[in-house]
C-alpha cells in the first residue's frame, strides 16, 4: 500500500471535509472560504460538496464572523469560522476575548461553545513579503485569554489530527496555521529543506489530543522548544549539528492551551539547557511564558540561563532583506545552540 502524502493545506481540508461528512452540525464560513475555496485552498471543493448553506462566504466583517460563530454554537451548531489572516483578528477582538472565551464561565457553565476559529499567521519570506499587517504571529495574546484553547500545529499529520480534535472539542479553539506551511507543494525547494511539510497522513479520521506535545527529535545536550515553522528550522539545524556531535532535542508543544508542561519539564531535566524558538516578537511572547514555567518547575535542573530566540520588537518590515533579518533564521538557531552548549 502506497503511503499517501499530504501537504499542510490538504491535511486541513481533509480534516474539515471528513468532519463535515460525519456531523451535519458543522458549518464553515469566512471571507472567500466558499466558492473560491479559501485564499490558501484550505476549503477548496467544500462548498461544492456540502452546499452553500453549510459553506459560506461572508462580507468583510470579522466581528460578525466571530459573533455569528458564537450564536450558532450556542444554539446547536458546531461552526468553524475563518479569519482570513490572524492580523485581521483585531477587527473582531472583542468577540474573541470578551464573548467567545468568557461566555461559558460567565454563565456558570450553562453555555457550551464548540467554535473553532481557524486563522493563518506568520511570515512568508521569501515567497511573498506581506509586511507589517499580513505577517504577524499573535498567539501570545490568546494564551493570555482564559477560556480559549490555542492550537498551533507544524506538520500535516499534526494538523489533521489536531483539527479533528479541535472540531470535536466542546470548547472554543483558536486554530492557527502558519502560512509558510502551505507552500511546500508549490515550491519544491521548501519540501527539500523542510521535508516534514509533506508527509504521510492517514486517510481515516484520527485525533491527536489537545495538550500533548510532540518530541520531534530526541537529543541529550540541549532542549529546543519550537513552534510552527521554527520546528522545521530547528530540525534542520539539529540534523546538521548532529554531525558536529551536538545532540538536540526538539519539542513541539503543538497546543499552547492546554500546554503539555510535563513533556517540556521532563526534557529540561534531562538536558539542563533550554532554547525557546518562536517567530513572535520577543517581549510578552509565548516564549516568555514557557521560560517562566520552566523556571518555576525545573529551576534546579538548569545548567544555564534559558534563551529565547524570537523576532525583535518591531513590526515586520516589507523589504525582503529586512524581513529576513527580523524572522529567526536557521543561522540564528545554530548560533544559539552552539552558544548554549559552549562550542
Amino acid at each position, binding site marked *: 500500500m502506497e503511503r499517501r502524502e499530504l501537504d499542510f493545506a490538504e491535511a486541513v481540508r481533509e480534516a474539515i471535509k471528513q468532519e463535515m461528512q460525519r456531523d451535519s452540525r458543522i458549518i464553515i464560513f469566512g471571507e472567500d472560504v466558499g466558492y473560491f475555496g479559501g485564499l490558501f485552498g484550505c476549503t477548496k471543493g467544500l462548498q461544492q460538496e456540502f452546499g452553500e448553506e*453549510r459553506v459560506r462566504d461572508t462580507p468583510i*466583517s470579522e466581528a460578525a464572523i466571530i459573533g455569528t460563530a458564537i*450564536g450558532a454554537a*450556542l444554539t*446547536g*451548531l458546531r461552526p468553524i469560522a475563518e479569519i482570513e489572516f490572524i492580523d485581521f483578528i483585531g477587527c473582531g477582538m472583542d468577540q474573541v476575548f*470578551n*464573548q467567545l472565551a468568557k*461566555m461559558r464561565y460567565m454563565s456558570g457553565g450553562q453555555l457550551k461553545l464548540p467554535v473553532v476559529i481557524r486563522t493563518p499567521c506568520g511570515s512568508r519570506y521569501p515567497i511573498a513579503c506581506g509586511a507589517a499587517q499580513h505577517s504577524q504571529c499573535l498567539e501570545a495574546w490568546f494564551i493570555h485569554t482564559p477560556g480559549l484553547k490555542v492550537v498551533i500545529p507544524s506538520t500535516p499529520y499534526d494538523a489533521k489530527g489536531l483539527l479533528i480534535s479541535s472540531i470535536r472539542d466542546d470548547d472554543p479553539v483558536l486554530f492557527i496555521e502558519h502560512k509558510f506551511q502551505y507552500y511546500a507543494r508549490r515550491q519544491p525547494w521548501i519540501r527539500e529543506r523542510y521535508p516534514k511539510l509533506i508527509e504521510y497522513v492517514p486517510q481515516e479520521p484520527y485525533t491527536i489530543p489537545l495538550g500533548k506535545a510532540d518530541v520531534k527529535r530526541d537529543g541529550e545536550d540541549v532542549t529546543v522548544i519550537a513552534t510552527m515553522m521554527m520546528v522545521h528550522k530547528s530540525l534542520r539545524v539539529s540534523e546538521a549539528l548532529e554531525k558536529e556531535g551536538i545532540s538536540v532535542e526538539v519539542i513541539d508543544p503543538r497546543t499552547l492551551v492546554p500546554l503539555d508542561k510535563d513533556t517540556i519539564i521532563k526534557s529540561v531535566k534531562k538536558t539542563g539547557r533550554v532554547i525557546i524558538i518562536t517567530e513572535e516578537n520577543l517581549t510578552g511572547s509565548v516564549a516568555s511564558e514557557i521560560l517562566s514555567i520552566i523556571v518555576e518547575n525545573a529551576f534546579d535542573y538548569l545548567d544555564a540561563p534559558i534563551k529565547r530566540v524570537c523576532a525583535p520588537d518591531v513590526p515586520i518590515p516589507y523589504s525582503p532583506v529586512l524581513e529576513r533579518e527580523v524572522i529567526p533564521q536557521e543561522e540564528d538557531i545554530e548560533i544559539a545552540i552552539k552558544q548554549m552548549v559552549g562550542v
Partner: protein
Amino acid sequence: MNPNLISNELLIEMYKKMLTIRRFEEKIAQLFAQGLIPGLMHLYIGEEAVAVGACMNLRKDDYVTSTHRGHGHCIAKGGDLKKMMAEILGKATGYCKGKGGSMHIVAPEVGIVCCTGIAGAGIPIAVGVGLSIKLRNTDQVCACFFGDGASNTGAFHEGINLASVWRLPVIFICENNYYAISVPFVKAFNIKDIAVRAQGYGIASAIVDGMDVLAVYEEVKKAVQRARAGMGPTLIECKTYRFRGHHEGDPKMGLMYRSEDELREWMKKDPIVKLKMRLINDGTLSEREINEIEKEIDAKIKEAEEFAINSPYPPLDAVKEDLFIGG
C-alpha cells in the same frame, strides 16, 4: 393597530410582566441602597413596555440576546426571579452560580442565550442564533435587544448587514432611550431615527412608541411573522426613556446630564400606569383585582429576595470551574 384584536388575558399578562419588572428592579434599587448588592446595576425602569411588548410575541423556544440592562428581557421571556435575584447578589443559587452577575444573566432554559456588558456585542451573536435557526430549519426567531448607544458600534453594522444578506430570522430591537450613559442622542447621531439605518441593509424597519406596550407588541408581531416566514430580519426602534440613572449610583439619577423637565415629561408616559388606566377604564380589571395582582407580584419579589439573601455564596473552588467543559 387594532387593540381589539388583543385579548384581555394578554393585556393582563402584559400588565403583570411589566409590573413584575418594575417591582423587581425597585427591590434591587432598595437592596443596592442598603449596600447588599456587590456590583453595578443598570435598571430598566421606564422601559418595561419594550421587553414585554416584544417578548409577548415569542415562544419559549425562541431566543433573546440581552444587554447590560437586561433584567427586563429576562423577566419578560419567563426567567426565574429567584435565580435572577440570587445571581444579582452573587450567590451560588443564581442562574450563573454567581459568576455572571447582573450584566451576564443567561437563562438558556427560557431562550436567553446571551447577555453581555459590551455595547453592541450581542448583535453579531444574535445573527449566529438566526443562522442556526435557519440551518436547523425550525421556525424559531431571535429577538436581539440593544440600545441607541450600541447602534453606533461596528458590531451593529456588521451584524445587521450579515443578517440581511443571509435573510435570517432576527428581530433587532433598538431601545432608544436617548442616552448612552451621559451622552445624549443628538451628540451621537446626526439623524432623527435610528430605524432609517435599515435602508442601508435592505431590511424592513419600524419606529414605535416604546412607552406603549401594545404598540411594541403589534410592531414586533409583524416582524416575528415575517421572520418565521423566512422573510428576514427587521429593525424596530422603540423610543423610550429610563426613569433612573444609567446605573444605580449615577449621581442625581442622571439629572447631571438630563433635565428634570425632560424626565418629568417622560414619566408622564409611564407604560405601566398607562396600561393600568386602560385596564381599569375598559373594565377589564377592577381596582380590587389590580390590588391583588400587585400583592401577588410583591409576594413573588419578596420570595425572590429572601431566596437570594438566604442563599450561600459560591464555594471558593468554584473559581476554577466552568472555564472549559473538558476541565
